[in-house]
């Protein structure tokens, strides 16, 4: 990357906000997923919308590839690439407005997910998508990844909560996607943009829907002697028509990791699996639903079903779930938090298959996941400095992904493809479908400079043989 570009960017954002030295760039070499290290050539941190637009235009003028990044909590190796300009957006953290009457907020991309919910609380509202990283991850990153979370079972994922976006395209044009003041007509470019993993442009502001805080919540903890029994309870609850706000499963390995940590939530350590279930909404009828859910668990073989009696107990039960990944950090130096989805009826068979694959590759898999959605998170703790162990982890993950595809599922439900899942895209999609994805990307980013090399394997693209790679 040329010094001229660095000087140009410094003129826009100030010298302190441009990093060039290898030591300074080190923090930006990886994200939340171990195993990938990519070094940007420089990093730039605009502080305002205008600076961001100017930076993107300067990058366009010089033909520099770039990667946008929020808090760097991504779990697919999405916000890193070698030799690019890293465009850090965490300084754009203004909540521009909250409109209580219309239950929405306009925020800059660097606003932290949980910060928005905290700000919305005085209106009796919250931002519903709640990834486990919500105390750190940003709305811009959530939009890029179409992030989910436990409570998306009832309330929907990021896509369902974005009303409109102002975006600067990689070429420097600023466009509005969606319609903040009414229906959006015609091609759903907003829907196409959400989850485009930074390949279509950079969000300048997002108008998002806020959800009313429920009048009442019931949190249930059911413990089971087998994963299979817990999975059957999940099926029975879903089939009943009761829409749980969240329906989470943790297996024995996860339970024990949590209980051995500072996040100990009082989970039964001798259980093979637990279900953590939130029911929320109007108080009227909620206890009836809780009673039925409890009965479904018991009928499926639950040893006990406990209901949190106060908000403190509820918070404690949930903290164990949300911090489960952190708890696993005590056990090993690195943790792969995987992400895949299978049809809900395939959960028991898939969990068995995952166990078998782990045993065969001599890696220990623990599962903590959104059972109500069939969204698995098989996690493997390991030491990434050990090449043999890393290879075994990689092989096991590959087999797990293939098993999910074979079961009619998908390779990611909420973390994105990034770098980590590129290899599986061809097993999931046909060549014409991958080509169509490339063609769509090309519309937003004709030079393929925004987050280059992500989501779709380059050789799947129609232009691969015809066109040169992005200008360097």
């Amino acid at each position, binding site marked *: 990357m040329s010094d001229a570009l660095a000087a140009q960017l410094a003129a826009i954002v100030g010298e302190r906000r441009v990093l060039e030295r290898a030591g300074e760039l080190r923090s930006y070499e990886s994200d939340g997923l171990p195993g990938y290290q990519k070094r940007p050539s420089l990093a730039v941190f605009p502080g305002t919308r205008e600076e961001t637009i100017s930076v993107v235009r300067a990058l366009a003028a010089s033909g520099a590839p770039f990667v946008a990044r929020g808090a760097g909590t991504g779990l697919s190796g999405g916000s890193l690439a070698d030799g690019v300009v890293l465009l850090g957006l965490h300084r754009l953290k203004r909540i521009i407005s909250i409109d209580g009457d*219309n239950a929405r907020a306009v925020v800059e991309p660097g606003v932290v997910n949980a910060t928005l919910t905290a700000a919305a609380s005085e209106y009796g509202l919250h931002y519903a998508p709640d990834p486990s990283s919500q105390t750190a991850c940003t709305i811009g990153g959530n939009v890029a*990844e*179409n992030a*989910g979370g436990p409570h998306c079972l009832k309330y*929907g994922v990021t*896509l*369902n909560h974005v009303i409109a976006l102002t975006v600067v*395209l990689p070429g420097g*044009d*600023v*466009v509005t*996607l969606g*319609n903040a*003041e*009414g*229906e959006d*007509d*015609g*091609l*759903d*470019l907003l*829907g*196409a943009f959400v*989850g*485009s993993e930074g*390949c279509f442009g950079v969000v300048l502001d997002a108008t998002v829907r806020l959800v009313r805080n429920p*009048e*009442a919540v019931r949190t249930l903890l059911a413990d089971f002697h087998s994963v299979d029994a817990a999975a059957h309870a999940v*099926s029975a609850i*879903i*089939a009943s*028509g009761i829409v749980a706000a969240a329906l989470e499963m943790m297996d024995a390995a996860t339970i024990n990791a949590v209980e051995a940590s500072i996040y100990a939530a009082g989970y039964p350590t001798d259980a093979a699996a637990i279900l953590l279930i939130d029911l929320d909404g*109007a*108080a*009227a*009828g909620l206890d*009836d639903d809780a009673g039925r859910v409890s009965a479904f668990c018991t009928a499926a073989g639950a040893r006990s079903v406990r209901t949190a009696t106060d908000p403190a107990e509820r918070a404690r039960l949930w903290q164990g779930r949300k911090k489960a990944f952190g708890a696993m950090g005590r056990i090993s130096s690195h943790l792969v938090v995987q992400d895949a*989805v299978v049809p*809900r*009826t395939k959960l028991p068979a898939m969990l068995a298959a995952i166990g078998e694959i782990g045993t065969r590759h001599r890696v220990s898999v623990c599962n903590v996941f959104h059972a109500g*959605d*069939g*969204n698995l998170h098989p996690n493997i703790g390991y030491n990434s400095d050990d090449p043999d162990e890393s290879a075994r982890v990689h092989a096991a993950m590959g087999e797990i992904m293939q098993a999910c595809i074979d079961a*009619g599922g998908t390779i*990611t*439900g909420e*973390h994105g*493809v990034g770098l980590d*899942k590129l290899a599986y*895209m061809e097993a*999931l*999609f*046909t060549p*014409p*479908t991958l080509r*169509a*994805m490339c*063609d*769509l990307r*090309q519309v937003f980013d004709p030079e393929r400079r925004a987050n280059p090399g992500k989501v779709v394997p380059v050789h799947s693209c129609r232009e691969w043989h015809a066109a040169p790679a992005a200008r360097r």
Partner: protein
Amino acid sequence: MARGAGGTPMSATTLADQVRHARANHHTLRICGAGTWLSAGRPAATTGTLDLSGHTGIVEYVPGDLTLTARAGTSLTEIASATRAEGHWLALDPHGAGAGTIGATVATASFGPLASAFGTPRDHVLGCEFVSGTGDVIRAGGRVVKNVAGFDLVRLTTGAWGTLGAITEVSLRLRARPEADETLVVAIGSELKEAFAARVATWMRTSALTPFAAELVSPTLARQLGHDGGALMLRWGGNASFASAAATEAATLGDSTRARETAWTDLARAEPVGAVVFRASTLPSRLPALWARASSFAEGAGGFAHASVSRGIVRVVVPTEGSSPDAVRKGIQDLASTCTLVCEQAGATLWPMFDCTRSSDALRAGVKRAFDPDGVMNPGLLGLP
């Protein structure tokens, strides 16, 4: 157009061959399922038709997964009857008859009052197969309820009116039927319609009892549904305790009576043939004022209106018989200056009134070119070549 002859459905490859053949011979194609939307008047001049009416049938329905995959020509009635047998439903109630196809519903992103609680087709479609304007068979999304693998071609195709390709198959998210599903009709009485709408809007913002649907109906429509004067139709689902609390709460809004069994299907099929139908939308907080204006216009022109309160959408229906074209034109112009208008059906001369330009139009044209470079599929729709 008649429904399919009932023969074996064509494969997507056969349909793709037809598109490739049309492209090679410089033909253009109008995509046609049940043919319901052809009368929408949206200007599209084509030299041929891609007929999907025979491309019917449910491909896969796994009740335990609450997902269903059907070919595009499958009727909404067939899907409703298959899912009802398992205590499930597709919580989507677009206007029109049940003979309408799932392919057209998704392609046009059609919805009805249930969208208040369950969203529009983009919130129900998990995956789709479509034949693009280049004759490629593209399989986007999947059959699971959560999926972020790859760029979202599903959302892109949903509501694209076939301009990028012909949807040949869709996978849908179903829901289990609630224990109780009840509709109450609250009479507006002598209250001014804006004041009543404002009261309903406030109540919806603050009540914990979120309805499946809350639809204001203007007097003419209310009469068709068996009620005198304007009304609010409230639909609730949940368990028995919830339904009983909801009924109590509805009573605080005004005189309430139980709706007749067919109220929602009657609403969905209320508009006269050939009517001008469009939706006016705004911020939900501005809905009461918009409701007053739009419903007065509609009733004044011999039609009717209904509004989804929490979504800020008023649907206006004006018959072409007996209403003055100039008055209709003026009414549309007046509304257009204060809100967003989306047209469902109108005569070819009225369509241009609903066009708007926006900052992303170059992108839209680019997407069209990427999927249908020669403008084979439904050319002219959505203002795309």
